[in-house]
């Protein structure tokens, strides 16, 4: 939450050198709601150009992890540092220029057009009157073109399908010109074509812009396909971490999810594929 009137720590920077990179590091995170421990002893490091996937059964604390990393919630214990500065020291505006979140099935006000929603990504760059410049518009337009939503620009969000809404929100995140990108189940409720499209887009952006990415997955096979590193959470603790082939094993999946599965190799790319037994 931070203070009511936070101090600006790093001063106001409007323009930023292209290709600047950031990394996010969390150490010994612990969080609880009342007496229920949601997350305990979680370490992770997001570095530029890499996607870290987080998997785990419902209630394992995946979404809480994203909320902690984006400072919506404050950890009880442990430290999160972004570019070497403690996360709590960042001014909200400065933070929003570096770190973005694509929330899980976000609520969008139906009266607004996709363009207006995407333009909201420029909020942390606007002056106090909130007047956007030509640069802001061009960046937003690029973000919309990149996410394939430009043709929806004048459409109201209430008239969009689930996949289109998700892409508009990703466009908004891109307009923020982030260096750290956190996605909370970006493929939830999407059809397979939109799942693949969305994940291709994310991997491409992470690779091209050298973003530090964290993606929460529901679908283990998507996680296997698109992540450089996987973290398997079980009731708030890290059960396993490493390359997809190291994490997605029948034993670990069985332990975390309590389900009998078999793991085979993908015929094309040799990545593990999890199948129910």
């Amino acid at each position, binding site marked *: 939450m*931070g203070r009511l009137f936070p101090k600006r720590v790093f001063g106001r920077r409007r323009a930023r050198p292209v290709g600047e990179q950031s990394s996010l590091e969390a150490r010994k995170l612990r969080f609880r709601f009342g007496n229920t421990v949601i997350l305990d002893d979680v370490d992770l490091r997001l570095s530029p150009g890499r996607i870290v996937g987080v998997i785990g059964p419902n209630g394992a604390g995946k979404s809480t992890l994203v909320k902690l990393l984006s400072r919506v919630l404050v950890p009880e214990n442990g430290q999160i540092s972004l570019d070497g500065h403690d996360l709590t020291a960042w001014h*909200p505006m400065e933070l929003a220029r570096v770190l973005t979140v694509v*929330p899980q099935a976000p609520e969008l006000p*139906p009266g*607004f057009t996709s363009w207006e929603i995407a333009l909201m990504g420029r909020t942390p760059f606007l002056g106090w009157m*909130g007047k956007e410049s030509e640069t802001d518009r061009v960046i937003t337009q690029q973000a919309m*073109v990149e996410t394939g939503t430009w043709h929806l*620009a*004048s459409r109201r969000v209430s008239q969009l399908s689930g996949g289109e809404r998700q892409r508009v929100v990703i466009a908004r995140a891109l307009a923020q010109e982030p260096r750290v990108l956190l996605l909370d189940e970006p493929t939830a409720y999407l059809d397979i074509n939109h799942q693949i499209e969305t994940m291709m887009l994310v991997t491409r952006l992470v690779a091209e812009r050298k973003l530090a990415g964290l993606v929460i997955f529901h679908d283990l096979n998507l996680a296997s396909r698109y992540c450089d590193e996987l973290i398997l959470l079980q009731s708030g603790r890290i059960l396993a971490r490493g390359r997809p082939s190291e994490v997605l094993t029948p034993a670990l999946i069985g332990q975390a999810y309590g389900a009998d599965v078999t793991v085979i190799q993908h015929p094309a790319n040799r990545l593990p594929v999890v199948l129910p037994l």
Partner: protein
Amino acid sequence: MSAYKNNEHKIEGIDKTLPAALAKPGPRRYWLWRRRGHVLLVAFALVVCVALLAVAWGSFSIPPWTIVKILWRRISGNPGVTTWPASWETVILQIRLPRAILAALVGAALSQTGAVYQGLFRNPLADPYLIGISSGAGLGATIAIAFGLLFGWGSLGAVSVLAFLGALVATALVYCLSRIGGRTSVVTLLLAGVALGAFFTAIQTFLMLRSNDAFHTVHIVGWLMGSFNLSSWAKVQLLAPVLAAGTAIMCAYGHRLNVLQLDEEQAQQLGVPVERTRLVLIVVASLVTATAVAVSGIIGFVGLIVPHAVRLVWGPDHRFLLPMSALIGAGFMVVVDGVARTLLSPAEIPVGVLTAFFGAPFFLYLLRQKKQQLFR
């Protein structure tokens, strides 16, 4: 990383061709946004014209051009030749003009704060009186009238002063009551407002019934419905600076209000300090509303329908919605007040009755015309 490279050709499939109609960044409705300054200017000119007609219109009418000449004579300080009776000048300058201006200011204040509250609470039913202002002001005014209090502040009577204080006390109470652990939840705020409003209204009704003087009761009921028949330059001088400052702050917060239309979490992640924005807007909007109520009584319905009407026509962007609501509200109030004082002349109809009488059908018409769901 190598894993996805096989499919890279698919990225080329993303539609990179821009729709031909969109030469400039932004959708087609965007031309209106680019011209928003002009649109506001035209609206302002219309409000001035309407106000001029309202001043001309009354128990006896004065040609609008003569009014302009009277005003010019007053402003320039140049005596010149007068072709009109001297009484006209008094009527214009001391009675009709302050009344029209006050009506415009009150209309602007209520409409704009209505838009702010609707945005803040993300609730289409919100209006400026939502979190206890009307009941607080009502109680204050009732106390002043029922106990026959006579003190005043400057040229303002006890009724105005107590109404203002009552409104602020009520809002502050509601805000403090709904602040739990350093955070305010919108729902708690709404419920606290309703509960405290009911409590204050109960006290007010009790006081009203207890006072034996029938004149007091009539006075209280009349005040509660709102009227401009006691307008004066002093009231204009009081409301104008508050409204000007409030408008500046509220309009500057327009883009943050837009972001608040997303949920709280998204707003925070976009760098908007939610709690602070809410506090600033509630304080400013409450001050503006309380001042408007203190000078005119509780005029209902304007703050509810004008922002909706503007939103239905021009879309929900608060950076435009707030100033436009203010202008439309000003024009609307001037017209309604003109009707209120001339329809049953020399008797006056309370303005609050007419705002609902004219506003509701027009609003229903708009709703039927534009069926898009604008709110959740």
